């Protein structure tokens, strides 16, 4: 028996080595993944661009597939459903309007349940069934970070709502953001507060901003405090006096975190979470009677219609400050917003989804559509690849998606926009008032 086993083991190891050497390889061979050395990424328009094709091509009968995957059954499901519906409604509308030069857009989704393992599985499935995947859309920071290298290696454009700096700039190259990375967001808001601290500071607060970072203990929740953002805050003279975490749950108790922030002398709270993450902080601040001692600010996802669903009272949201790197449903004079509103009504989406996710993903699909159109115009449909779409996004920059709902600029090696508004909740739902119109965020991307 033992003899058989040793034979079996030897043969097994030998076979595995031989077969591994002969096995198909992901094309092309990836760059080494050592951290933090970065994969070199083309940041300019392609050098050898073929001659532009004459006139719009007729791609009737062709199908171009956009893939997207995200958490629909895990902790981030609340925000993912409207994102998915936005993407799917946008694709449907494009097809009804004649498609992309006549080609039908298809969109395929996979639920990852918030599991990175499942995100990789979805990626493998999609890349396995399509010889030439062009664009994928992702929604989570963890997924973006885990897959960034694969997107770069396989030259597939990833348009992402998960705005982790690491996912965009470490071992990356093909991941493009729908908004500024979280370090840029915290930097923009803190610079704004620093500039006008006298106006916004709580009564009795010191002249110096003392920041408490209260957030989820996840890649997303901790995504705003990086080496670069810490250095930037220090340059602004802002001291991070407390770093606390709380559970990724709509019923999380943040009392201890808030009291620790108070004890540390904080006068500004930043939370890098979704609507329900901000809401628990605001609810607990009111419950503790400490709301007037802090300016509360969050990343862009914190200021959303969904926030009101989790607030104990709508008035608790008043005073929340966020970067706002897109227009809002109330900007009804914008044709992009009007278009999104038409889709929302036509598809009979529930009122609860009239939020940032739905709007932003219509812009995301528009961005993908524009990039593919540009790429087809440049290299022709027969040469359309993820690399061509990547180059199109760079070459088009700066540009506006969905008539200015999103302002993107992927030039100079940047893969995340650097323009944002800063808004404050000053009333009931949708009262997201502009404190500062479009302005440039600090550039706090990590060195590649």
């Amino acid at each position, binding site marked *: *028996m033992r003899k058989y086993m040793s034979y079996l083991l030897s043969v097994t190891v030998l076979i595995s080595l031989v077969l591994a050497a002969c096995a198909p390889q992901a094309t092309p061979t990836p760059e080494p993944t050592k951290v933090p050395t970065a994969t070199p990424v083309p940041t300019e328009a392609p050098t050898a661009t073929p001659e532009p094709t004459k006139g719009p091509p007729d791609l009737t009968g062709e199908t171009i597939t956009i893939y997207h995957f995200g958490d629909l*059954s895990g902790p981030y499901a609340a925000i993912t459903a409207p994102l998915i519906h936005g993407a799917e409604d946008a694709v449907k509308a494009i097809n009804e309007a004649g498609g992309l030069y006549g080609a039908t857009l298809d969109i395929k989704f996979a639920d990852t349940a918030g599991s990175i*393992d499942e995100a990789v*599985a*979805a990626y493998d499935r999609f890349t396995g069934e399509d010889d030439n995947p062009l664009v994928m859309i992702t929604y989570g920071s*963890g997924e973006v*970070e*885990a897959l960034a290298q694969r997107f770069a290696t396989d030259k597939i454009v990833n348009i992402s709502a998960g705005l982790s700096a690491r996912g965009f700039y470490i071992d990356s190259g093909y991941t493009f953001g729908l908004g500024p990375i979280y370090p840029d967001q915290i930097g923009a808001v803190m610079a704004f507060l620093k500039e006008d601290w006298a106006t916004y500071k709580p009564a009795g607060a010191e002249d110096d901003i003392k920041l408490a970072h209260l957030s989820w203990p996840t890649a997303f929740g901790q995504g705003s405090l990086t080496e670069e953002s810490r250095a930037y805050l220090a340059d602004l003279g802002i001291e991070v006096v407390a770093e606390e975490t709380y559970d990724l749950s709509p019923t999380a108790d943040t009392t201890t975190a808030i009291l620790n922030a108070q004890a540390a002398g904080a006068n500004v709270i930043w939370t890098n979470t979704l609507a329900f993450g901000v809401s628990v902080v605001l609810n607990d601040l009111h419950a503790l009677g400490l709301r007037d001692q802090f300016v509360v600010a969050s990343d862009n996802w914190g200021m959303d219609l969904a926030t009101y669903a989790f607030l104990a009272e709508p008035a608790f949201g008043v005073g929340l400050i966020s970067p706002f790197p897109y227009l809002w449903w109330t900007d009804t004079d914008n044709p992009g917003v009007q278009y999104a509103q038409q889709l929302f009504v036509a598809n009979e989406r529930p009122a609860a989804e009239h939020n940032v996710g739905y709007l932003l993903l219509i812009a995301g699909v528009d961005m993908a559509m524009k990039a593919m159109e540009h790429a087809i115009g440049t290299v022709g449909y027969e040469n359309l690849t993820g690399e061509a779409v990547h180059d199109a996004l760079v070459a088009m920059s700066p540009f506006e998606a969905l008539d200015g709902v999103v302002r993107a600029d992927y030039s100079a090696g940047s893969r995340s926009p650097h323009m944002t508004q800063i808004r404050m909740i000053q009333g009931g739902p949708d009262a997201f008032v502009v404190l500062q119109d479009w302005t440039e965020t600090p550039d706090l991307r990590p060195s590649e």
Partner: protein
Amino acid sequence: MSALRPAGEFDTSYARDMATIRRPWQWGLLLASIAALYMLPSLASQSLVSLVNRIGISIIAVQGLNLLTGYTGQISLGQAAFMTAGGYISALLVNNAGWSFFAALPVAALGAGIVGLVFGLPSLRVKGFYLVMATLAAQFIIPWFTRNAFPEVLNRAQGLNVQVPVLFGVEFSSPQRYLYITVTVLILSTIAAHNVSRSRLGRALVAIRDNDLAAEVLGVNLFKYKLQAFFLAAVYAGAAGALAAHNIRHLNSETFNLTDSVFYMGMLVVGGLGSSLGPFFGASIVQLLIEGATLFGPFFTRLFPSTAAGAVQALRPLFFGITLMFFLIFEPRGLAHRWYLFKAAWRLRPFSH
């Protein structure tokens, strides 16, 4: 469960009595199955190969849990945390120390085993529900450690990018290539787990599971054997964690979470506790259910277009929950038991009752 055999069929030597594979055709089937697994990358689609990779890694993790829970009766909800430990050890050895993955893998398994020993310490004093709580602590402490300790090395919540394994210049970067590693480790882990269950250690573990007081009276050192069970379970988890980390190519405190631990326990229940086949059945069935839920989601969405996305696309928890409930009610001994019954009925035919 001992095999039921027709009357008159006897073992004529000790080697035959101990043999796991008893007939030439069983050897043939085993070798053919292994060959089929190694040929799979050339024959199957990438998504299928990727799925088999995940099933293989899950089986290894569940085999460890089987040694602890199935054979020793110590319930643990910390298996995913030990995977985190193994994943980080391997990632650091490969990324920072320049080790080969193939050298780092066993060290990661042993390192996770040592971590498992620490969390196994309460097992002498507490059992049942209380032990579950003690092991649950691992699921909080280890991720906390990776987020807060040595930030310059572990990179806080952002985690680490993990290099792909390389052997003699061959990069195992595609699911197809990675499968060779997974299958090889799975074969080794299966041989080890099966033989542990047949050894003095395995018999001691079963004695502890069946009646720890009686086992102690008979001279079984409870503390020593329980710790050994925790160590082995964590070794398996560590190996699975290292395999998964290098397959995913990224690792942070969220990669292996409490939900994963619950899923592994569910896989073991579905497959069958205390059986070498249980992890194979359980991991395969649950992973296939997950895959099925993902694949059928879009189909259901088209079938019920006006329903909220999560209600019809995110069927995974529903599939898992219903399956677990079904097995707990109708076949609490798992698919492995059902398989043994089937085999017995076949051998004894036409007198199966």
